[in-house]
């Protein structure tokens, strides 16, 4: 678990994914009344992580690291979900976006909690409290 501090990298990627998705959801909500705007999203963290890592191999966490993978590098494929558009060409559903926002918040909280608890374990193992 702590030989290569993998758990921190995964927690970091999870929080970064949540941050990125939060920016997109904010943009969708902001443009909820803009004519001709199409809703945007990124693929969920779980699927991005699975297709990308194939298990718990060591990964690079920033550009330049050996074996740097996209989900930890902060690049996620942007998708445009199929959604029925309003007569003015806008396909944002505010309800859907608020639901996504809650999902993002929970994911972010989870990532921060994992990071903090791992940090505490590491601190304890070093003999500090």
């Amino acid at each position, binding site marked *: 678990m702590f030989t290569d501090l993998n758990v921190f990298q995964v927690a970091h990627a999870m929080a970064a994914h949540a*941050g990125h998705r939060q*920016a997109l959801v904010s943009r969708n*909500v902001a443009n909820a009344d*803009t004519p001709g705007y199409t809703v945007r999203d990124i693929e969920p963290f779980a699927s991005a992580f699975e297709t990308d890592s194939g298990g718990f191999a060591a990964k690079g966490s920033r550009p330049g690291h050996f074996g740097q993978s996209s989900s930890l590098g902060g690049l996620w494929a942007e998708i445009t979900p199929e959604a029925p558009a309003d007569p003015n060409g806008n396909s944002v559903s*505010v309800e859907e976006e608020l639901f996504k*926002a809650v999902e993002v918040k929970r994911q972010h909280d989870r990532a*921060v909690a994992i*990071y903090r608890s791992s940090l505490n374990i590491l601190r304890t193992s070093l003999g500090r409290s």
Partner: protein
Amino acid sequence: MMNEFSKALSVSSSALRAQATRLRHVAENISNADTPGYRRKTVPFRTTTEIDGPPGLVTTGRVHLDRSDLTAIYDPSHPMADETGHYQGSNVDLMIEIADAREAQRSYEANMKMFDQARQMSSSLLDLLRK
């Protein structure tokens, strides 16, 4: 990472500003509903692209005047009445304006929620630095 949050915050605040502008024009329309010859104002929303600053922000375009016909009001004693006894009122429909105001309010609230959430997420991240 922090950059994503500041992006989210600036997008949300641009939308708040746009909705407030829209609400101001609705208020102007409602207060001038009885002004003779007043045409209702509408304000279009637009998404910024890479060309004009950071993408995804909401801006309001130029104010448009509604070109629909003014209502003819029958009042022979009115100083602006013509020979048939009619004068031209405004083309403001109060029901449309109130529906518009309500929609602007709802969107404002949704953006406020997103702003608050981005702020909470970034502060929870900063909490990690505290012991």
